[in-house]
Structures are given as structure tokens and as C-alpha cells.
């Protein structure tokens, strides 16, 4: 407990910086492609504009903050458009996986018996293959694209959180306020959703937040392999794939989306860690 007090100020710092960074990124991905004069998908004068280095002007005098790709498209605008998809996949994929896990975990812990055993057996089954293998099998089932990636991320991401919530629910069920609520005449769903789940939700939220970065990484990996978001729609993963054979003459094409990816994943994981520390602090003082 001693160390917790020592780490006080740095904790708050690690909470603020990633939040501000992610908020700026969210505003950027929403606003920049909408107001930009350059269409990030449209290819114009390729020879004049292609592979302009970052922070420089092309032949037509247009300034490119992060340079251009091999078709002369502005990388900054494309990055922001790609960020829309990456953030969307990260937040929706991890969020719905977390929600599904919470629901199934709560049902398993609450009902017990056969339902509990079946759900946990299903979780074991899905955990018995590495997630990447499941993702590859799943992605191959349907035509690649945003919807497939989301479905596969959700169906392969709920197991850990379901186990977590199940354990929490079982622990909470043993506490005296649960029979008290029953005795006061609360209907079982009300007891579950008003009394049990709120007390069991903390770790699930932390795990979901930490899952966002993971989902963004997995999506970019699938897109890099050509099994995720399909060009011309940009995602950070397929932008890196597009820069793969330009490493020598135009390293920024692969470098720029990679840095954006790393910074975003770092921010979400800091956010998750800060949340976990705060939760741990609350538990200690309670």
C-alpha cells in the first residue's frame, strides 16, 4: 500500500495524457477527412504527386504534412480516414466482445448448474486454440471486410471476460446484501442487474479497455495479411502492407501508419492500466 501512495501523482498523469491523445485522435479522424479538400481515395496526377516526402510540397505547390503514397494520395488525410476504421473496429469489437462476455459470464455465475457448465465448456473450447488461429479460420469463412472482422473479433474475444465476470458474480452472490435484496422482495432480474452486476463490473470494464488495443492490433494484422479491410478502403494495417515494397525509396509510407498504430494502442493500454489501478485503490479503501 505504501507504494501506491508514492505513485500517486504519476497515476493521475498516466490517466490524463492518453485520454487527451485519444480524444484528439477521435476529433481528427472525424473532422480531417470531412473538411479536407483532397479526396483520400481519389487518384489524380500520379506522376507529379507520388511519393512526396513528409513536410514538403509537391509539384503543384500543395503541402503534404506526412507525404504521399505511390498513387499521390495525401498520407495525412488517408491516415485519418484509416483511423476511423481502426478505432471503430477497436472500440466496437472489444466493446461488444466485453458486453457478450459480461452477459454470458453473469448468466453462468447466476444460474450455475448445467448452463454454467455448458458455457464454461464452450469458453474452454474456444480458448484451446490460439486466438489468431480462430481469427484466421473465421475470417476465411465469409468474404473479407469490416463486418467479417468485427464478427470474428467479437466471437473470439468474449471468453476471458466471461470467466472474469462469472468469478466476480459468484463472489458477490455470497455477500449479505444479495439475500437481503431477495428478502425485500426484489425480482431476480432486478437483483442481478441492480445489485450483483454493478459490483462485478469493474474488472470487466478494465479488461474491455485493455482489449481495445488488442483488437486494433489484430485488425491491422489481418488487414496486413490481406484478410481484413480491403483496399481501396484504408486501414492502418493495409496501409503498412501497401508500403512494404517501398521500404527503400519511401520508408515513410509504412512508417507513418505504424507510428499512429503504436501510439493509439499505447494510449488505450495506459488508459486500461490507469483504470485498473484506480479500481484496485478503491477496493483497498473499501
Amino acid at each position, binding site marked *: 500500500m505504501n507504494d501506491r501512495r508514492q505513485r500517486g501523482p504519476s497515476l493521475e498523469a498516466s490517466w490524463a495524457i492518453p485520454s487527451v491523445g485519444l480524444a484528439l485522435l477521435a476529433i481528427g479522424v472525424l473532422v480531417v477527412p470531412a473538411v479536407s479538400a483532397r479526396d483520400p481515395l481519389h487518384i489524380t496526377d500520379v506522376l507529379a504527386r507520388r511519393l512526396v516526402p513528409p513536410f514538403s510540397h509537391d509539384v503543384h505547390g500543395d503541402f503534404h504534412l506526412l507525404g504521399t503514397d505511390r498513387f499521390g494520395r495525401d498520407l495525412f488525410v488517408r491516415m485519418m480516414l484509416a483511423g476511423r476504421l481502426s478505432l471503430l473496429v477497436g472500440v466496437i469489437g472489444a466493446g461488444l466482445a466485453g458486453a457478450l462476455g459480461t452477459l454470458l459470464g453473469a448468466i453462468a455465475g447466476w444460474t450455475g448448474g448445467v448452463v454454467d457448465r455448458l458455457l464454461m465448456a464452450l469458453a474452454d473450447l474456444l480458448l484451446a486454440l490460439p486466438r489468431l488461429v480462430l481469427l484466421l479460420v473465421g475470417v476465411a469463412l465469409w468474404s473479407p471486410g469490416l463486418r467479417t472482422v468485427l464478427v470474428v473479433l467479437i466471437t473470439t474475444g468474449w471468453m476471458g471476460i466471461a470467466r472474469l465476470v462469472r468469478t466476480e458474480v459468484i463472489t458477490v452472490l455470497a455477500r449479505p446484501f444479495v439475500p437481503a435484496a431477495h428478502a425485500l422482495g426484489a425480482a431476480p432480474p432486478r437483483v442481478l442487474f441492480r445489485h450483483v452486476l454493478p459490483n462485478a463490473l469493474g474488472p470487466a470494464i478494465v479488461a474491455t479497455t485493455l482489449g481495445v488495443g488488442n483488437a486494433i492490433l489484430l485488425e491491422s494484422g489481418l488487414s496486413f495479411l490481406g484478410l481484413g479491410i480491403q483496399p481501396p478502403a484504408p486501414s492502418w494495417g493495409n496501409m503498412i502492407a501497401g508500403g512494404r515494397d517501398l*521500404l527503400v525509396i519511401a520508408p515513410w509510407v509504412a512508417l507513418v501508419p505504424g507510428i499512429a498504430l503504436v501510439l493509439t494502442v499505447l494510449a488505450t493500454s495506459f488508459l486500461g492500466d490507469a483504470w485498473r489501478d484506480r479500481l484496485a485503490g478503491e477496493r483497498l479503501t473499501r
Partner: protein
Amino acid sequence: MRYHRVRSPALVRVVARTALLYWCVLSLTFVLLRLAPGDPATFLLPPGASAADAARLRSELELDRPVVVQYARWAGRTLRADLGRSFIDQRPVTAVIGSALPVSLALGGASLLLSFLVGAIAGVIQAARRGSTTDIAITAVSVILAASPAYWLGLAAIACFTYLASTLDLPMWLRLPAVGMTTPGVHLQGLGHLVDLARHSILPVTLLAAIGAAGVARYVRTSALDVMRSDWLRTARAKGASERRVLARHLASNLRAPLLTLFALALPGTVAGSVFVETIFGWPGMGRLMVTSIVARDYPVALGCAAAYGALVLVANLAAESLLPWADPRLRA
């Protein structure tokens, strides 16, 4: 002796449960692959093949039967350890996997051992000097590594050690080959072959090991800090044990069990995670085999890959479970 009486039925139950789970994993993969849209016959036949050709091929591959019949026949063959033949080149699946699995196991195994060695040492140093510059620096590096996609780091490594190193005219030993396991077109024997293989392995193995070591260091740091707060460590110090003895004896023996568990959990993930490294560096391993077989609807090979991965996970878990009492005497009771 009492230990054996209690332990054996439990072990039998665990093995039976594992075998059942394994069968369910295989069946699930089979059903998923058969539910997938996309007819293997259209992938296998040359363009312009007639409908009759497609029908003949489908009946040859038994794809025209009901799924239940297909499942029953597949289950019978699998139980006799016959994984079938690849739809694409008719090689037995066991041979296809037999040539890809050693590549991935060697790549994954070597980098996993290296990552545990480096990661455990780094984590203990961090815990021993908590708050120091070393601690903060290692934490920063490991956090960034954990957030970086493997394929992107691979591209960066190739850019530095292959292209940049040759542009800067660095000495030959710093200019590492980017693609393949050996130099193509050159047939080296004995030592020359080994040196060639080693030079090709440096980038992919270091890359996978660095990513793994980042995770291990973070885990070991947390576990070691927990142990350092314990009463018995304070007692050891109070008795006058040297810091070296405290770290080497009291801390190390308490880290054995968590490290063993982590190793078993990390092995399959590392082998699967090498998909990206294999793709970047062009190594003919399981990851690439899995991706190409799924994309080409080569069901027997894809199922074989899933079988290999599943077996790896379950064997690693079983091994960890049976070795845990060795690593932590408190579990022997």
C-alpha cells in the same frame, strides 16, 4: 505414497477431459470449414472447366455427400490417424505439416527460450532496482514493444539491417539477409549451411524473442515485487542473508511456478504469432501454411493445422499441470 493414490485418478480425469476437449476442437473446426461458403472445386479447377468436371471433382473429394456423412467418414479416418491428402497437390497432410511444423517449432521454440532468458533476467533486475533509471527504461521499451505489431517491427528491422546497412556499407556481419531460411540457389554443406541458416535466423528470432521478452519482463517484475513484499523474504534478510542469496535462492525458487505456467501459456501463442514473422521473412512455416490453405479452401490441410495447434496447446497445458508440483512443492500435498 498417499500422493500417488490421490493423484492418479485426478490425472486420468485430466487426460480424458483433455482428449475430449481436443476432439471437440477438431469437430468445431471441421463444421466451421464445411459451413463456409466457397466451393473448393472452383478453386481447384482451371478457369473454363465445365460443370461436369466440377461435379466429378466434388464427388472425388466426397464433397457432394451430406455434411453428416462427411463428418462420420472424416472422424473415422482421423481416429485411424489418417489426415487425408491435400486437395491441391495430393500430398499427404501429415507430410505437408511435417515439413512446416519443424520450421515454426524451431522459430517459436528458439525465440521463446531466448525471450524467457532475457525477460526473466530483465524483470528481476527491474524488481531489485525498482524506480531506478534502468527499471524505467526497460519498462518503456517493453511497453512500446507490446504495443507494436510484429509485422511492422519486422519491416523496420529489414529496413535497418538489410537496406540501410548495405547503403552505409557496414561490415558484412551486420548486413543480414531479409528473406528465406537459406540463401537461394546455393547448396552449402555442413558448417557453411549452419552459418547460412544462423544468419537468416538472426532477424526473425530476435524479433519474436524481443516481443516475447517484453511480456515476460513485465510479468516477472510484477511477480518478483509480490515475492519481495513477502514475510519470508524479510525474514531471510533479517537473518543476514546476502542480497545475492536472497535473489538467487528465495526469490528464484518462488518465481519457478509462475514462469512455468507462463511458458506453457506462451508456447502455442508464440508459434501461432509467428504467422506475421513467417510472412515478412518468407519462412515456410505453419502460419503461412494455415493462411494459404484456408484461403485456397484446402480443407484437409487447414484441419491438419488446427489439429497441430490444438495438440500443442493441450500438451503444453498438460505438461505445465503435471510439472507444477515439481516447481512449487506446496502443490504436492
